[in-house]
């Protein structure tokens, strides 16, 4: 590895890390203002223009609160747990491509931290580690509500991870690769052209795997513990579930992990089913208008990716304040009796279609 390559790698790491960290304050305000919008209230609107600086107050509150450890907890695992949820959340983003490549001083730069052979599998593998933070937190807190929360979380994760894996298999079969870069590049092709309007429909995942998309979306909500599947914390029945005994910065870490997980989930949805960094409609024309230089194209690709991710982040908030929480048996029924068979059927049909030679 030459010096330039090392520099490029470090810059990429820094950009991704900073990006993920800056999501947290943005989502704090978006979630609070968003919930207010949904419920016809005002929400925090005092600090800064439209309340956009509310996160500073929130963060200050978290930092200055007394960081106490209850006497009845298992100290080691109690302190470790928030980190176990947070670190995998950050690690998952490493394989997600956020723009195509660019040649800088003879080095071709790919805008992806690691282009692994097993990209999608890596995402799911590391993503599945996050649940241990929740289990650890619930168990180490030595509190019945917390333990119930972590039990629910482990059952839920196991059930929905299966559907999550099945839902993307169809996509993998179409694009013949587990690499996220290949899948994104494949989605740049044209699926078909609408005859009258001369609009081209790209080969995005949602157009070739609509069932897979719905399965993936639902399972991702369950995996990120967001409403309507936030049973591990379910404040109305378990008070706060697994993070009941946590306060100040330790609680803030859990919240950060949730937002980062949401970001990674949104990025995965965008990458797998919405073309990732493939340009949004009309962006291609804009790039042409601006001269079509490579760096302009990359900028617009990154912008397209960001817009897609931002939309799904908003979608998470939107759903959270719209749909009520499931009951646990409903959750399990949905997972095992509806989504799981649907995933199997989807794979079978996809295989049949590919075998018949339709692409």
């Amino acid at each position, binding site marked *: 590895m030459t010096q330039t390559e090392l520099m490029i790698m470090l810059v990429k790491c820094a950009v991704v890390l900073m990006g993920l960290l800056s999501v947290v304050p943005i989502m704090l305000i978006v979630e609070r203002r968003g919930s207010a919008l949904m419920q016809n209230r005002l929400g925090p609107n005092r600090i800064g223009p439209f309340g956009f600086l509310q996160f500073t107050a929130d963060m200050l509150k978290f930092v200055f609160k007394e960081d106490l450890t209850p006497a009845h907890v*298992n100290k080691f*695992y109690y302190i470790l747990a928030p980190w176990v949820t947070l670190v995998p959340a950050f690690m998952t983003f490493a394989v997600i491509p956020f723009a195509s490549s660019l040649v800088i001083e003879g080095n071709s730069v790919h805008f992806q931290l690691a282009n*692994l*052979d*097993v990209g999608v*599998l*890596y995402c*799911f*593998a*590391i993503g*599945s*580690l996050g*649940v*241990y933070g929740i*289990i*650890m937190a619930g*168990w180490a807190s030595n509190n019945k509500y917390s*333990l119930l929360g*972590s*039990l629910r979380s*482990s*059952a839920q*994760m*196991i059930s929905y*991870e299966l559907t999550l894996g099945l839902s993307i298999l169809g996509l993998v079969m179409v694009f013949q690769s*587990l690499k996220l870069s290949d899948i994104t590049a494949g989605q740049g092709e044209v699926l078909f052209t609408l005859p009258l309007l001369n609009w081209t429909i790209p080969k995005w995942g949602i157009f070739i795997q609509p069932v897979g998309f719905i399965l993936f979306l639902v399972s991702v909500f369950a995996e990120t513990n967001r409403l309507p599947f936030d049973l591990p914390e379910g404040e109305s029945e378990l008070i706060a579930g697994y993070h009941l005994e946590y306060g100040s910065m330790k609680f803030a870490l859990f919240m950060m992990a949730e937002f980062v997980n949401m970001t990674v989930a949104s990025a995965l949805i965008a990458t797998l089913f919405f073309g990732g960094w493939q340009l949004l409609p009309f962006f291609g024309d804009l790039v042409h208008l601006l001269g079509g230089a490579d760096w302009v194209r990359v900028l617009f690709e990154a912008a397209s990716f960001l817009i897609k991710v931002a939309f799904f982040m908003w979608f998470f908030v939107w759903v959270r304040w719209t749909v009520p929480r499931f009951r646990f048996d409903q959750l399990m029924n949905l997972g095992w009796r509806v989504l799981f068979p649907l995933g199997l059927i989807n794979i079978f049909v996809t295989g049949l279609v590919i075998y018949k030679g339709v692409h």
Partner: protein
Amino acid sequence: MSFEIDYSFVAFIAFATIALLGSLMVVFKKNAVSAAFSLILVLFSFAGIYAVLGAHFVAALQILIYTGAIMVLFVFVIMLLNDHHTENDLEKTGFLLKVVTSLSLVALGTILVKAVYSSADVHPTGTLNSDEIIRLGGSVQVISEALFKDNVFQFELLSFLILAAVIATITLAKRGTKSSKNGSET
């Protein structure tokens, strides 16, 4: 270059140390849940070692299946059992058990020493080294071709075995619920 660090060697040593310490913790932790958490650490560092060896697919599957799924079930079951007899009282073990334990310890130690001594000049055999795998299109390609093309018959046999096991498990579980609920709806 005046100094060239062999990153994969450093990574191997790190993961191996974690795995060893973790295994010791699995054995010596008195609390069942802590032992299970240590086992997660061990399985994760195995995945790290696979990744260092260039077997990314195996590493991903190791985390996905062992660390991510099986261990969650382990922890789940241990928590549900809520076992209060977790203290392993070594004083109460019988004389015979002590003898058997010591003998098996000696045997395991011998195997370990032999393995360490004979592993000094072992090189992977066969045509598939890491360069060859990259030339053939990555580890996913190589493994899937081996599984679904060259050894597809054995693979199908194995899947029948697993299917049989699944059916047996379901049958056992169903019978249990029926007898306990007097044949009511499961």
